């Protein structure tokens, strides 16, 4: 029961309260780069959810059974970067071979993901302590954290793409055209998402 609560808390926090893009400023480059069209935003978001989940699982195993026993945690950054880069390559190959239809829709976004700072961040966060239980992340918790952070990213990206498609038609002042107006829209969204921080009380006290 306790571990179930902690999973709910992690998921809720990662999707809404500490949304990766709008509260933690992670993954902003794809957030502004790929949010011009709704279809590509959905594809990119799904690819991020997929890769984040798998990367969280892999890095957790490597961290727990290789880095910690051999006392080489100081190599974390290098090892994780290597794992992520090769994992993305591997996924691309496997998808192309076995699920061509999935590859068609997500494939072009995969190379972009390997230098996505949101992916690297979730992996680093998983090596720390779980803020709700005060213990290191378990395998299931870190997997859920990966998936939920990816879903949070997907939600923010899709909402943003919807807004930017409408912005195309709007009459924006010339100096604010392009990126600045996108930043202002993101700021308004972040303001709305700030409202979810009221939920953190529920999430923080729920497990006790």
């Amino acid at each position, binding site marked *: 029961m306790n571990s179930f609560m902690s999973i709910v808390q992690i998921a809720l926090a990662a999707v809404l309260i500490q949304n990766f893009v709008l509260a933690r400023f992670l993954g902003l480059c794809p957030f502004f780069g790929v949010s011009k069209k709704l279809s590509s935003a959905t594809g990119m978001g799904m690819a991020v959810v997929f890769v984040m989940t798998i990367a969280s699982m892999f890095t957790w195993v490597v961290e727990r059974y290789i880095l910690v026993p051999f006392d080489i945690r100081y190599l974390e950054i290098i090892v994780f970067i290597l794992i992520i880069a090769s994992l993305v390559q591997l996924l691309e190959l496997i998808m192309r071979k076995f699920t061509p239809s999935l590859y068609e829709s997500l494939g072009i976004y995969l190379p972009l993901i390997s230098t996505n700072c949101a992916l690297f961040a979730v992996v680093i966060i998983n090596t720390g302590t779980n803020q709700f239980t005060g213990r290191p992340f378990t395998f299931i918790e870190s997997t859920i954290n990966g998936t939920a952070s990816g879903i949070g990213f997907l939600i923010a990206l899709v909402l943003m793409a919807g807004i930017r498609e409408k912005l195309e038609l709007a009459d924006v002042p010339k*100096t604010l055209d392009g990126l600045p107006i996108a930043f202002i829209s993101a700021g308004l969204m972040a303001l709305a998402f700030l409202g979810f921080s009221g939920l953190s009380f529920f999430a923080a006290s729920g497990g006790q």
Partner: protein
Amino acid sequence: MLKEEVKRGVITENPILILALGLCPSLAVSTSVTNGLGMGLATMFVLVCSNIIISIIKGWVPDKVRIPCFIMVSAAFVSILHLFIKAYMPLLDQRLGIFIPLITVNCIILGRAEAFASKNSLSRSFTDGIVMGLGFTVSLLILSAIREFLGSNKLFDLMVIPKFQPLTAFALAPGGFFTIAFVMGVVSFLRSRKEARA
């Protein structure tokens, strides 16, 4: 020569405000000037070191695996920096948190490696690292000064105007987006005016 290089890094090719690279750390840590300065200098260190190494090894790296190689070089320097900051500046480590390891995947580092250091000589790459790092630091300082003043009525953690009620939202996430939108708007206004005059 030097003056032109500095002008290129800080003004005409400013990494954040013109090229829009490295947005994540610049928005996340710009809540106070101290954090901004720390982050700027940390990034500059990694940028200069990785530019030097990459311009030295550029002849030996096969073209197909150059990107993984560049990432590994920057990851190595970030590891060094992370351990150093953890050991000697625990307070800065606490305040910047996850954003120090994230320097590895900062687009500025990889962008300069790919666009500049892999094609130019050692001394030019070194200068490029310095001026780009300078541009990054300067824009971080501008952003963080605005946010720290409006968000918590402080500069370098010191009170500025007594009895001024700060707008807390500027210290939180939305303020980051609004501030950079405003600064970018000002920059593009100044550019368009300059173009109209020319």
